[in-house]
């Protein structure tokens, strides 16, 4: 542990020593390094001095008077007789123009033609206004108003029509219900007609035939038993024969009656079907008639026609029904007739049997055998009758079913017609309800709306008429203005024609051609100079701008030195100091008169002013610096430190009062003995350390 402590102390001690040595070396060399990195500056003290300001500038020599050549019309130049720099005499021809009409005249003539055309067009375009559309709209609104008023008046009638429509619907519904009930009944009858138990008479005949057959068979059996024995009586036989004859006669009458009754029944069925059809048609006609009557919109002719139709159909139906009734009553006895016929047949059979027995009794065994044969024959007849009864049952059953089906078809047709009538009645009811939707208040509101619209239309029409009147007046004014334009244009043309110039352009003054801006073939532009002449006899001038401060140093009649001319007799003198329009309030224009051997356009460098002004603080121009905050100078301030004297650049804001080529007079927070930095080998900022040259 102690060893480690010693070791640790050893390296710490070394570290301390190294650290101190490094700090010592850095301290020893730091000043050198820092000074080496500092910018070296040259400085001098501020001092009073004189600033001799001269105003220097260059200017171009111009002639005192310059004459411009131009024409007042557009003409084509035929030839140019001079060039720049030529000396000319007064009256000398400079330009020769083409002998043609000028563009201005042609343009003015075209303008006049256009104005005339426009005037003619304006005269033709004036038309009388039409108000057909507005009148039509007003007419339609009036019709709508009348319609609305009549609709309002009809509102009460529509209520009754609605009630009638409702009643018609009710009646049609009742008809439909009745027909539906009838149809159900017929359906039930149809199912009943299929049941054999409903045909009592026929079943009775079958039963009777079966009984007869059974009796005949029994007799047959009995006779067969009695074949061996025979015993008859003549009187009995005679009586029995008489009975038999009467019964047979009676039977014939009954059978005849029965046939008649059957025929009548068949006719009655067809008559009934006819009756039902006629009745259905009559009901449909009734429904139609009701609908027409209750609708309120049907005409009387329609109603009369419907009524006639209905009455005719009703009468036909009634007739058919009475005919059916009479036939049906005659066919009503058919059942009793059948019973009687059957009874008669039984009686006849019985008598026959007795007769046969009687004959058999009196006869011999051969007669019994003959009876037996007869009974056998009778048995066969009974069987035939049984079969006939069964066939009759079937026939009656089929006929009954057929009748019922016919009735069902008829009823269906009637029901369909009744449904259609019901639908029509409902439609009429709906229509009546919709027509009734409109109340008196709504109708009045509609009428008011239409009246307002009508009023608006009247107002619009009046406004349009006023507007059209105004438009007409404006068009008349426009025509007057156009007429005035035409007259004016005619005057212009006359004026142009009077001013048409000659073909030669001559110089008014003697001088030197300063500039020619056109060539042969060019067109002249009115008001634009075609060339300029410098009038020599008026002398030369040069002008240049100066600041107000500079202008203060110059007086009129000051001599101006021409700096770039030697061995010349040219002289210059300030003749005027004017305000500079391009820089009002901040600058002046110096006007210098130049005499001697100079030419127009020559560039001369003038130097004016020899006065010097004394200033308290004058510094070299290189000491004056400028940034966004203005002009300033940097002064050197010394500070003592243990490491030696330090020099710091400090900023002092100044204002430059005057300056010449080398020095500037400044004012600011200066005491007069500042050490001003003039130059440096590196850029220097205020607050930075600097070093002075050794």
């Amino acid at each position, binding site marked *: 542990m102690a060893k480690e*402590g010693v070791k*640790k*102390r050893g390296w*710490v*001690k070394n*570290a*301390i020593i190294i*650290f101190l040595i490094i*700090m010592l070396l*850095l*301290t020893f060399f*730091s*000043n050198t*390094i*820092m000074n080496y*990195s500092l910018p070296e500056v040259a400085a001098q003290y501020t001092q009073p001095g004189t600033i001799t300001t001269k105003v220097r500038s260059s200017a171009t020599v111009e002639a005192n008077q310059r004459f411009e050549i131009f024409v007042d019309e557009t003409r084509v130049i035929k030839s140019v007789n001079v060039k720049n720099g030529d000396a000319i005499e007064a009256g000398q021809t400079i330009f020769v123009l083409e002998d043609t009409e000028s563009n201005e005249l042609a343009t003015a003539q075209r303008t006049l033609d256009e104005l005339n055309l426009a005037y003619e067009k304006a005269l033709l375009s004036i038309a009388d206004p039409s108000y057909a559309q507005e009148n039509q709209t007003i007419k339609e609104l009036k019709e709508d108003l009348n319609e609305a008023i009549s609709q309002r008046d009809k509102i009460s009638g529509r209520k009754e029509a609605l009630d009638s429509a409702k009643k018609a619907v009710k009646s049609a519904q009742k008809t439909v219900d009745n027909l539906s009930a009838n149809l159900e009944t017929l359906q039930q009858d149809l199912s009943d007609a299929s049941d054999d138990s409903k045909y009592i008479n026929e079943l009775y005949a079958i039963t009777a035939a079966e009984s007869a057959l059974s009796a005949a068979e029994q007799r047959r059996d009995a006779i067969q038993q009695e074949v061996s024995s025979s015993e008859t009586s003549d009187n009995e036989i005679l009586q029995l024969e008489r009975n038999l004859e009467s019964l047979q006669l009676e039977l014939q009458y009954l059978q005849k009656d029965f046939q008649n009754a059957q025929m009548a029944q068949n006719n009655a069925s067809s008559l009934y079907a006819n009756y039902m059809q006629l009745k259905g048609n009559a009901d449909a006609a009734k429904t139609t008639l009701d609908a027409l009557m209750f609708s309120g919109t049907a005409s009387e002719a329609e109603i009369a026609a419907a009524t006639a139709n209905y009455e005719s159909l009703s009468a036909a139906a009634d007739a058919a029904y009475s005919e059916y009734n009479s036939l049906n009553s005659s066919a009503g006895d058919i059942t009793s007739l059948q019973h009687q016929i059957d009874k008669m047949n039984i009686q006849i059979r019985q008598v026959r049997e007795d007769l046969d027995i009687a004959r058999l009794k009196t006869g011999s065994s051969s007669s019994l055998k003959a009876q037996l044969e007869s009974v056998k024959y009778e048995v066969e007849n009974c069987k035939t009758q049984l079969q006939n009864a069964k066939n009759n049952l079937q026939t009656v059953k089929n006929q009954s079913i057929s009748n019922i089906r016919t009735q069902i078809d008829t009823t269906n047709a009637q029901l369909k017609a009744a449904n259609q009538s019901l639908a029509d009645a409902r439609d009429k009811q709906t229509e009546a309800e919709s027509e009734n939707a409109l109340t008196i208040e709504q109708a009045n509101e509609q009428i008011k709306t239409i009246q307002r619209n009508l009023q608006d239309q009247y107002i619009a029409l009046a406004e349009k008429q006023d507007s059209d009147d105004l438009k007409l007046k404006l068009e008349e004014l426009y025509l007057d203005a156009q007429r005035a334009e035409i007259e004016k244009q005619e005057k212009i043309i006359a004026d142009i024609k009077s001013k048409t110039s000659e073909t030669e352009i001559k110089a008014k003054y003697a001088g030197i051609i300063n500039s020619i801006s056109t060539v042969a073939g060019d067109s002249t532009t009115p008001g634009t100079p075609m060339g300029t002449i410098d009038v020599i006899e008026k002398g030369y001038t040069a002008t240049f701008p100066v600041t107000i401060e500079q202008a203060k140093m110059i007086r009129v009649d000051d001599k101006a030195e021409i700096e770039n001319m030697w061995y010349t007799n040219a002289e210059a003198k300030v003749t005027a100091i004017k305000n500079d329009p391009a820089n009002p309030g901040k600058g002046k224009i110096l006007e210098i008169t130049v005499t001697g051997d100079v030419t127009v356009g020559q560039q001369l460098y003038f130097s004016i002013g020899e006065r010097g002004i004394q200033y308290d603080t004058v510094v070299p121009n290189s000491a004056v610096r400028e940034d966004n905050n203005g002009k300033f100078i940097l002064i050197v301030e010394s500070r003592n*430190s*243990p*490491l030696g004297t330090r020099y710091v650049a400090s900023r002092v804001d100044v204002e430059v009062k005057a300056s010449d080529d080398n020095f500037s007079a400044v004012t600011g927070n200066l005491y007069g003995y500042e050490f001003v930095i003039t130059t440096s080998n590196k850029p220097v900022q205020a*607050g930075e350390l600097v070093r002075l040259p050794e």
Partner: protein
Amino acid sequence: MKIKKTFKYVNLALMMFIAIMFAALFLFPTIFTITNSFMSTSELASNYGKVFETLTGNKTYVQETTNFKLIPDMVSFSQYTTVLIKSPDYLLKFWNSVILVVPIVIFQLLVAVFASYGFTRVRGRLKEMIFFAYIILMLMPYQVTLVPNYLVSQWLGILDTRMAIILPGVFSPFAVFILTKYMRRIPIGIIEAAKLDGAGEWGIFSKICFQLSKSTLYSVAILVFIDYWNMAEQPLILLADSQLHPLSVFLAQINQGEVGLAFAVATIYMIPTILMFLYGEEYLIEGITYSGGIKG
């Protein structure tokens, strides 16, 4: 048993965690200073512009909020270059600190070792009264004695000179107190044994007390060094000339001047203190915890 063990480990882990948190908390300013010393001036301005906004030199900073950063965007030695090479003022201030602190440490120890021997060997009420006065003086904050110090310095004519700081530092009671306390623990038997062997006062002082007090001397030297290396009030009050100010004052003023150098200056400022502590760490701990004893 298992639960006890688990509880013990959990307890240990919790303690460690709390200790680490506190350690991090205390170390954070130091680490922060060192890492930020490797940032360039522009990066410092963008991070701490608002904090160091100044009214001099028309300086403006890019960012309005402060952004604490530990890792530089680009490691730059520009701060150290500027401080150590391009800024002789800093080095001047460093040597000012050395010139002030080294004499104070040396002469304070010299005065303290003799004074503590005297307080140990001499008996009497007067000695107790003087020692008591020493203790009272040591307990007083510097601000209490500031005005008397200033007046005495002015009277002595040493105001605005380094002696105005060195002289009061040399006669500071702190080292006397520590050394006296230590020397009183030296067993009387050793001293009597030396007396019996014919040693005089100087012999006892030089051969016994001084030798035995070496570790305490080292620890006191370190403590005094640290104390006077960080002094700021005395130079501010007693030295009007800023060229004589030590590094501690320069460091306090740098926030109003070259902000970009603050962290580098602070890091370099820490180095002597750390080296001194590392050098005398053992003595420091030993000197504080010595329990004395006679062997054999």
